[in-house]
């Protein structure tokens, strides 16, 4: 598996898109730190971009890599390697190289501006950890879709729809429900609903760490009382991990039956 991983990273690191992605984050963070003297605000802006963009890029890269390396995967399948190792190698390769673009793209400006000594280090690290989680989650989801759908165009469509669901549609439905059932206590519902969407979960996790929860009113205070604690952090990081583990489990069961 390590050999496959090594080569897919090698292949991706030489692809133009990895650099475009890296340079995008580099420029974005540089301009944010340059324009903003307030680090907290810069981190919130960065978060807003990362929380929506990493899932999108992860999804697109995931399906694109799967479909474009289909014939090569067939060549690998004819080698004496276990199926699951080929796909795990590719999956980790894509996720890691995307995470590398993110960490370097955002991290270099952060270090250059000497923010390592500031109090924002913890929030910033959390931002990168969450970004890495989102990469691994959405590449796994994208791989699941690609493995299930042989038609490239259809697979691409479903993948984008999946992203749109988590990034936009889910929130819209969620908001609608909150407004409609305004008269009822919704704390638990809110808590569970945020757990079921990795994008929401990531966003709330960072927002609450940044003490912006005061803006969120009573629910914000309630969420703060849960996520703000160490216990909350552990629970939500475990929830994010489940979002990686479950798709991987489905992937490996799918692989046992799949024809290539």
């Amino acid at each position, binding site marked *: 598996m390590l050999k496959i991983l090594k080569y897919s990273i090698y292949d991706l690191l030489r692809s133009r898109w990895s650099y475009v992605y890296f340079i995008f984050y580099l420029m974005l963070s540089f301009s944010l730190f340059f324009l903003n003297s307030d680090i907290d605000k810069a981190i919130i802006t960065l978060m807003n971009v990362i929380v929506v963009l990493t899932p999108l890029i992860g999804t697109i890269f995931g399906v694109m890599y799967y479909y474009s390396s289909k014939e090569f995967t067939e060549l690998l399948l004819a*080698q004496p390697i276990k199926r699951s190792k080929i796909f795990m190698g590719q999956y980790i390769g894509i996720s890691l190289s995307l995470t590398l673009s993110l960490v370097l793209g955002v991290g270099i400006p952060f270090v250059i501006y000497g923010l390592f000594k500031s109090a924002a280090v913890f929030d910033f690290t959390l931002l990168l950890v969450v970004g890495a989680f989102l990469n691994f989650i959405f590449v796994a989801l994208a791989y699941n879709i690609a493995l299930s759908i042989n038609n490239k165009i259809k697979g691409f469509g479903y993948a984008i729809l999946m992203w749109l669901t988590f990034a936009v549609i889910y929130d819209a439905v969620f908001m609608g429900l909150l407004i409609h059932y305004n008269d009822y206590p919704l704390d638990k519902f809110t808590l569970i609903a945020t757990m079921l969407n990795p994008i929401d979960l990531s966003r709330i996790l960072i927002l609450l760490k940044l003490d912006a929860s005061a803006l969120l009113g009573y629910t914000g205070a309630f969420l703060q009382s849960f996520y703000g604690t160490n216990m909350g952090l552990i629970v939500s990081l475990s929830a994010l991990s489940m979002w990686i583990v479950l798709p991987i489990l489905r992937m490996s069961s799918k692989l046992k039956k799949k*024809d290539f």
Partner: protein
Amino acid sequence: MIEIKNLYKKFGKLTVLEELNLTISKGGIFAILGPNGSGKTTLIKSILGMIIPNKGEIAIDGENILRKWKYRNNLNYLPQVANFPSNLSVKELIEMVKNLRPKKANSQELIDLFGLPPFMNKKLGNLSGGTKQKVNLVLTFMFDSDLIILDEPTTGLDPIALIHLKELISKEKAKGKTILVTTHIMSFVDEMADEIVFLLDGKIYFKGSVDALKKQTDQENLEHAIANLIEKQYQTATSK
């Protein structure tokens, strides 16, 4: 050497292999022929473990291979479409495949044979179809394995490369290797194959030497003999 028993595979509602039984003895060139959609690729990919049959058994040298992977170390496969990661160079790709197998490879000889040295540092994405196929051939033939499976090996090759390919196949045969080939080029079959396995509707319709096939269909020319086999099927299909 290869023993296939009651192999059954369907994709959705379409049955591709229907209780197929086939024994392929050790050594020699076996051409797997049949009209489009007769199940040639499904059969080959089942042997490779890329397609998982619904029912049946496949054994190589007496050992069941379904859901196993180690046996592939003694098997070389040439896929039909030569498509590689476009960012790797030819050299890197060859090194990578070598790396994946715990056995020795003699790639240099083949690289020289197919005139690939000037392309070694070129990115795979920039190569022409024929050159990619040559790289594909190097990857297939560089290992010393008892079973060699070639899916349309002649695609895109120039006449010189084709001659080299034929020589290569003959050489492997002389070493006692078993070679399975699918192709639509009948002259290639006529020249190379020891035995023909003709598939029709997911079953073995004919298995025997080229001469036996010519005799059975009463045709001098292999192309016509094969056409004769397919035609019979068309007639029975329309009369049904």
